[in-house]
């Protein structure tokens, strides 16, 4: 149970922000004569709903055992992979490869994360998974467009399962501040360096998800206000250089302002927030390119009636491994 005031302040702050955003969204919905594009209001409201879901997911991490969070992220990743593969054309001879990808690699990755076996979960998919997919497709005896087919399945496995699994993996790290790390490194054997681990890993996960989501929002907002130079019109007509830079800059400022919730100092928090906002943006671009290639607007319209999980978490998929590895490299003892 959470007794830490910092965690409560952070959670209540995010809840208030979401509450305000929801109220604004509902108010705009009830004002058809406001002159705003109703489609825009609808998009806004849909995004708010997705934020509530994501925030409840990471808020659950604060109150429930961390294994529950791992399972919840596992389900999210499973659904994202379903959408990814459904959208990607595969051949009938890929069926058994896909079966093992869904039935073996997806659950196993999250089981290993839940057991905290870093050496295994960091290699399961990038090494064994990729080799398995390549070999299994070859064993199916259908050489047609071999590399293209293996690459599609591998991309799905890495982006949806591996990258996303590193978000809950944060909960299992022993995180210290950089000052404590240098103390621990220089301490003579036998002496007690008098430091304790950061310990609020669930709050750090919350911080990460919040910054990535706000980065998305800032990039969108600044793109609408300042955007002139579209980066790649045939990939995404709304993503501009101005939106990317101003949005990531705003996310960095927000990240630095919230440093007190993290094991980072102001500068570290700002730099890390900048990096994850930029990688999140890159993730959105990449998923957009996949969607344009398949000629769909978003993953939600691909199978009518489904929410389009991948549309909401594309930036998280890209930012999670970067955030995890930065934290692990600079803020743990390994």
């Amino acid at each position: 149970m959470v007794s830490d005031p910092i965690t409560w302040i952070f959670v209540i702050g995010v809840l208030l922000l979401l509450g305000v955003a929801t109220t604004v969204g509902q108010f705009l919905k009830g004002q058809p004569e406001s002159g705003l594009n109703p489609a825009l209001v609808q998009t806004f409201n849909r995004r708010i709903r997705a934020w509530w879901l994501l925030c409840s997911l990471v808020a659950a991490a604060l109150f429930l055992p961390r294994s529950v969070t791992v399972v919840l992220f596992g389900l999210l990743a499973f659904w994202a992979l379903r959408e990814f593969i459904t959208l990607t054309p595969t051949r009938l001879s890929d069926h058994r490869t896909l079966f093992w990808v869904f039935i073996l690699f997806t659950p196993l990755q999250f089981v290993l994360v839940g057991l905290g076996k870093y050496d295994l979960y960091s290699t399961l998919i990038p090494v064994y998974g990729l080799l398995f997919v390549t070999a299994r497709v070859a064993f199916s005896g259908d050489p047609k467009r071999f590399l293209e087919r293996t690459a599609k399945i591998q991309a799905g496995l890495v982006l949806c399962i591996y990258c996303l699994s590193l978000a809950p993996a944060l909960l299992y790290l022993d995180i210290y501040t950089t000052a404590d790390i240098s103390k621990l490194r220089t301490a003579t054997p036998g002496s007690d360096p008098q430091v304790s681990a950061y310990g609020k890993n669930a709050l750090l996960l919350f911080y990460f998800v919040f910054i990535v989501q706000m980065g998305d929002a800032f990039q969108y907002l600044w793109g609408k206000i300042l955007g002139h130079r579209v980066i790649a019109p045939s990939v995404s007509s709304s993503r501009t250089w101005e939106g990317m830079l101003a949005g990531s800059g705003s996310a960095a400022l927000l990240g630095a302002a919230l440093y007190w919730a993290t094991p980072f100092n102001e500068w570290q928090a700002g730099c890390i927030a900048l990096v994850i906002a930029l990688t999140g943006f890159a993730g959105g671009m990449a998923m957009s390119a996949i969607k344009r290639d398949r000629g769909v607007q978003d993953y939600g319209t691909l199978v009518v009636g489904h929410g389009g999980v991948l549309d909401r978490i594309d930036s998280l998929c890209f930012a999670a491994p970067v955030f995890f590895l930065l934290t692990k490299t600079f803020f743990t003892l390994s």
Partner: protein
Amino acid sequence: MTGPLIALIAKLLTGASARWVDCQPDTCQRVYFANHTSHLDSLVIWSALPGPIRSVTRPVAAKDYWGKTMLRRYVAGHFNALLIDRKDIKVHQSPVDLLLREIGSVNSLIVFPEGHRSSGRQIGAFKSGLYYLCKKRPDLEAVPVHLDNMNRILPRGEFLPVPLLSCITFGSPMWLESGEQKTEFLDRARENLLRLKDI
């Protein structure tokens, strides 16, 4: 209890979302006719129906698949399947009469008028069974049902499903018009089914 549980598992496995286009769920007697790409088709359509309708709907399924193992027989028994032997069709025991006798004046049917599973996205020519069903019981509503992506979840010749997402579309009901010929009716039914593909 087993019925709803089977329906839930089928829905989770196939991520199936049902869309009703120009058609509302109803317990009146209907013949749902669908394109056939997978052994799971009958189970999935049945699961997509709302509970009260599910209990009066009987999917027609192949005896050589669903009667083969204990587990399949068990599942088939709980989703009210009417197992039809495709190899053993006798002249004096036509499957149409058998089906009509089984549904009486209460139940609805789920049939696959292509007769066999098609391998891809094409929809083959319809066999005449649907026409004879509607001819002998002109009060039956024929409802086209389009299944999308099921052939990737459990393709022909595979026995383990991959949990991708699929979509089920129910179209507007149709009836046999008076004086309508067999081929006209079957073509019209096929057209109605094909139209759902692009909605």
